[in-house]
């Protein structure tokens, strides 16, 4: 689904690189969580994949045209912005060239936010806001949804709700690529994990254990998972 070749990036345009010579094939129809410590370039990877950042070297190819994106919104969102949930969805629909307003209700139902259609986005809680943005990403019926830290700043209940929505979408065949801070949740919910760190990333097949796990941290995670199960 996503083909990354020799990806190299730094914000300064020179060494030291945040990501250096990363090559990876991210499979379709799966739920893939990007994990790693603070500063390990998780969000940077997401921004490179969606095209918000341009690589210094290398390429990212997405083999689908229908991509939904959920930004890392909680910290930067202007709560005073006078806009309703319905208006957010309408401008997104129009940008996609769609005029069928019934899609708004359908996508709001997907994220259980149908009662908040007329609400101001600024009046919603963190979890509700994130669900609204996930619903917005669904408007174009995407086959790939990319989320940049969807559970940051949320209470545990909201985090669980968001993860449940993502799992439901995954069961419907939508590919999910998300940054996840909670390693335990990442292991429980994901099919694959991308562990970022040391200027690179490694893709692990968590669901089937097919990959020969070598990295110590991931070994620990898997032990943790077994214990939890």
């Amino acid at each position, binding site marked *: 689904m996503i083909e990354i070749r020799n990806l190299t990036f730094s914000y300064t345009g020179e060494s030291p690189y945040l990501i250096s010579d990363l090559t990876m094939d991210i499979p379709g129809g799966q739920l893939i969580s990007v994990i790693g410590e603070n500063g390990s370039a998780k969000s940077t990877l997401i921004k490179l994949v969606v095209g918000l950042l341009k690589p210094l070297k290398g390429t990212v190819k997405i083999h689908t045209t229908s991509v939904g994106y959920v930004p890392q919104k909680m910290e930067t969102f202007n709560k005073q912005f006078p*806009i309703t949930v319905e*208006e957010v969805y309408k401008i997104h629909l129009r*940008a996609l060239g769609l005029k069928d307003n019934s899609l708004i209700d359908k996508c709001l139902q997907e994220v259980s936010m149908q009662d908040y259609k007329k609400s101001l986005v600024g009046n919603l809680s963190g979890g509700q806001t994130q669900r609204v943005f996930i619903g917005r990403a669904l408007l174009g019926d995407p086959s790939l949804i990319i989320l940049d830290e969807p559970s940051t700043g949320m209470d545990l209940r909201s985090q669980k709700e968001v993860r449940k929505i993502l799992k439901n979408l995954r069961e419907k065949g939508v590919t999910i690529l998300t940054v996840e801070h909670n390693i335990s949740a990442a292991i429980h919910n994901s099919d694959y994990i991308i562990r970022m760190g040391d200027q690179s990333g490694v893709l692990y097949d968590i669901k089937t254990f097919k990959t020969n796990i070598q990295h110590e941290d991931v070994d620990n995670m898997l032990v943790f998972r077994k214990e939890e199960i």
Partner: protein
Amino acid sequence: MLSYPFMQNALMAGAMVAILSPIVGIFLVLRRYSMMGDTLAHSSLAGVAIGIVAGFSPTLSAVVFTTLAALFIEFLRDRFKQYAEILMSVVLTLSVGIAIVLVSSGAANTNINQYLFGSILTVTRQDLLMVLLVTLLTVSVVSYYYNELIYTTFDEDGASIINIPVKRVNYIFALLMGLSIAVSIRITGVLVISSLIVLPVATAMQFRQGFRKTLFLSIGIGLIDVLLGLVFSYVIDSAPGGTIALMSVFTMVLALLLNPLRK
């Protein structure tokens, strides 16, 4: 009062500026570029000074200089995003510098005051026509790019990912901003143009409505500010620009105090 032609012109000009300013202002406020209004107002003063010294139409030279300044700020903002506030200070300082140097040279001081403080009671038919054209242009362009402008203002990254031409939309907005401010300063004055760009929008935002309603509310509030300001200035014989500015502050304070939705 309305039997005087100068008062009729003033009301027409004021009404158009009251419609024009919040249309541009709502995007300016929500992008947190409120300082942009002041910066461009000072750029337009430099444009006026250049026009007077060079013997061109001051309004036309203000339009050209302010529009170029707006596009220049957008160009710099696009390249140095984290320094947007500093860049505006640079352009403001440059503009004020040009204006002061030209005015202090003695070549431009005869007419500059009416641009500094506004002169709504002496607007000419040419001024009216200019404001009308810019108002029509702004309403048309904002209507055409309505969704793109909101999306870019609300979520610039999201807009870029969904293939909205963010750069084009931002430059078009900068162009409208430059034009709007340049044609408005003859009426409201450099020193109070921000009051009409920012305050009606800030007042409307107190009512916690969606975007479309807030936009129309801010136009309505702008009209109230301008028309009441003009009437009061006539009654108490004060400068219209300053009276309109005071009225816009009064309306905002009133909205803050009386708004039942205020938390």
